[in-house]
């Protein structure tokens, strides 16, 4: 019975996340070309584009988006390569690997708020400077956060994407046999730097391509971080589009749709350029490989990589610490290093305001994560069925489809999806909110679970079937029983992705839904640092609790089973 249902799972999965993207894109493109019947706009024209062109700050906003988006992505990619070259494989790297899950679980918005508390003119770093040197006496008139060049935005984005790229690289590295390749290179007289650049990186990049493209698309079009850490006048194009979509003048939705579509075009163009640059760069790598030179020069890789790792660690720990300090601050005057006095007032009064957004965050996140897990398990089980029918079957080509919602800027389709829902009178419903989160939860759920699920030795299932005579018992007790760790980790990942969603909640809810994330982002534009810190910490804690629960449950489940104690996700 269930076997007969299996072919429906991948279809349902694709339908769940492709419908909003495709309907949403069409629903954004039409207003971008002047078609918006709800506002009595029924003629196709280029007027919205011209209006966008003449809108104050459009050119700068576009330039800022491209610079911060591409700049931060390339920085993150370069830093990832540097860290791998310097430390992989080593004991230190294995320690770093263990830290990746909690680091990845830090939501972007919470991280950006914390960085703001660190680097702002009245932030902790300047306070340290003031205490240690006696200067400055007052918060200086510096643009260290939300600067007009987008540098602080780039810093936040790059720091947040390095762990993601490292995590994705880790999934591929074992197959590349790095240690043996380095050893082989050394036996031929090559230093590790050259072996990495010429032999390992070209192959690894092929496997990192899609995650890297997702990083580029995200960085070009991110809204919540840009609202917190980005320039304000003008902001990035994504923020400008969001403001146009939410302007009291309803007709500004048309140039807003044009701005969102521009972002889509910029993203497609950027990814195309990156794709076509690969071949000449690969050719260069091959030339470097075959020139036979064995430079004696030590590159000092570990020193360079430490220049990324040490400040990176400092920013992650520092932002967390300063958030905790602000959440317990009674008064905290400049240039004091610590709040004076400490107070739990904000925390004591928090439950009253936090409860509703917290409940909505939890219920939406858990529902999206569980639905995504069930759909993905069904789709992967269908793959097993197809592989049994046709040995050698792989679903690798589907990977591009899975990545689609991560490659298309959220702003480019969420408005259109919102308009379509309103047209169908489905706007503002909770299940639609869950669905909009699923669009992003599903791809991450698939990417997290597919590796370990496909690595499962199906012969266990055959043995289970021949022993028990029951398909369901074998599936539950033998297969899922062995996969608790990746299943829990995947569930926690899905929950974390949902918790971090800002734009889908904003657009689909039409202001009716407030989650911890939307509250944190809207507080970030105000001046109440204590409440900002409390919301950011709660936002940060939720995914962390999810991961801690998932991993401890697996550890408890396998406490008597040595073979499964050290398993990775």
């Amino acid at each position, binding site marked *: 019975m269930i076997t007969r249902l299996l072919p429906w799972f991948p279809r349902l999965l694709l339908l769940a996340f492709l419908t909003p993207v495709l309907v949403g894109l069409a629903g954004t493109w039409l207003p971008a070309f002047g078609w918006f019947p709800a506002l009595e706009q029924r003629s196709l024209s280029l007027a919205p584009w011209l209006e966008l062109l003449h809108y104050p700050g459009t050119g700068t906003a576009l330039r800022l988006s491209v610079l911060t988006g591409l700049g931060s992505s390339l920085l993150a990619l370069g830093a990832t390569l540097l860290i791998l070259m310097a430390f992989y494989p080593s004991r230190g790297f294995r320690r770093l690997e263990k830290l990746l899950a909690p680091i990845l679980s830090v939501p972007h918005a919470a991280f950006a708020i914390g960085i703001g508390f660190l680097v702002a003119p009245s932030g902790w770093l300047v306070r340290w400077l003031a205490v240690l040197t006696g200067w400055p006496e007052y918060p200086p008139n510096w643009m260290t956060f939300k600067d007009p060049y987008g540098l602080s935005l780039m810093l936040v984005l790059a720091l947040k994407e390095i762990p993601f790229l490292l995590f994705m690289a880790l999934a591929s590295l074992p197959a590349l046999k790095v240690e043996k390749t380095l050893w082989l290179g050394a036996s031929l007289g090559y230093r590790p730097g050259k072996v990495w650049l010429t032999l390992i990186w070209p192959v690894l990049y092929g496997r990192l391509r899609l995650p890297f493209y997702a990083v580029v698309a995200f960085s070009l079009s991110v809204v919540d971080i840009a609202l917190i850490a980005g320039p304000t006048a003008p902001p990035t194009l994504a923020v400008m589009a969001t403001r146009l979509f939410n302007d009291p003048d309803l007709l500004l939705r048309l140039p807003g749709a044009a701005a969102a579509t521009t972002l889509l075009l910029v993203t497609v163009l950027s990814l195309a350029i990156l794709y076509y640059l690969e071949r000449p760069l690969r050719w260069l790598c091959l030339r470097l490989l075959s020139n036979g030179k064995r430079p004696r020069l030590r590159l000092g890789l570990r020193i360079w990589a430490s220049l990324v790792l040490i400040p990176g660690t400092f920013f992650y720990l520092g932002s967390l610490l300063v958030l905790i300090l602000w959440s317990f601050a009674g008064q905290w005057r400049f240039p004091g290093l610590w709040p004076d006095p400490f107070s739990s007032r904000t925390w004591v009064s928090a439950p009253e305001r936090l409860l509703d957004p917290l409940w909505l965050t939890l219920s939406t996140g858990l529902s999206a994560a569980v639905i995504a897990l069930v759909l993905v398990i069904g789709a992967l089980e269908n793959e097993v069925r197809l592989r049994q029918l046709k040995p050698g079957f792989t679903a690798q080509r589907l990977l591009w489809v899975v990545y689609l919602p991560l490659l298309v800027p959220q702003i480019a389709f969420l408005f259109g999806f919102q308009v379509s829902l309103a047209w169908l009178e489905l706007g503002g419903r909770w299940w639609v909110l869950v669905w909009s989160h699923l669009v992003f939860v599903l791809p991450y759920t698939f990417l997290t679970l597919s590796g370990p699920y496909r690595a499962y030795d199906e012969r*266990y299932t055959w043995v289970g079937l021949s*022993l028990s005579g029951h398909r369901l018992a074998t599936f539950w007790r033998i297969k899922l029983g062995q996969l608790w760790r990746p299943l829990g980790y995947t569930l926690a990942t899905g929950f974390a992705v949902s918790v971090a969603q800002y734009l889908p909640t904003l657009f689909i809810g039409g202001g009716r839904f407030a989650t911890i994330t939307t509250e944190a982002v809207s507080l970030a534009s105000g001046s109440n640092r204590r409440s900002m810190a409390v919301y950011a910490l709660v936002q940060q804690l939720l995914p962390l609790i999810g991961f801690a629960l998932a991993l401890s449950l697996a550890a408890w489940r396998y406490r008597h089973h040595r073979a499964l104690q050290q398993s990775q996700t």
Partner: protein
Amino acid sequence: MAFDIEQLSLALNHSPLFQPLTVHLEPGQIGTVMGPSGSGKSTLLAAISGTLPPVFELGGDIRLNGQSLLSVPIEHRQVGILFQDDLLFPHLNVYQNLVFALPGGLNRAQKRERIASALASAGLADFERRDVATLSGGQRARISLLRTLLAEPRLILLDEPFSKLDQHLRGQFRDWVFSRIIELGIPALMVTHDPADRPVQGRLITLETSDA
């Protein structure tokens, strides 16, 4: 329980893997299938166990006690399989591995008794609570066979079950496996590369390639 393979042919893309095969095994008789690599030995076991991918074309019949197995799904064939890897479930202890194989309808005391006596017969009394990861290769192999036997199979398939064992364990374990199979009167079909694995009174089945 007699086992019969009648004019069985297996082909991939219309290319036969071996000449049509006919085998008859009496209860407790062990057939040893030998043949060069790629001759279709493991595919033959897959066809019997019910895990043969449909890309293979299958002709002839496989019968257990006169009943054709071809349209019976793997979980209802009652065919036990032993691979060269013991495939003990790593998230279950010895007792849980064994209890999974027991037929339904037994109460807790009966299950305990059966498992205790099975373990005792293999010289592994008091191993119930042991984590399977802490067992030696020989102990794991014995638990794996006990698990297969507790499911009360009507036929046992052995896919090079001794190839991963140390030389000194190999002979000892082989004799123990064969004696259990003969004692329980279950027909068994074994695939192996090593002529030494063949039981003295067993039947030798050679797969002849179709171009031979």
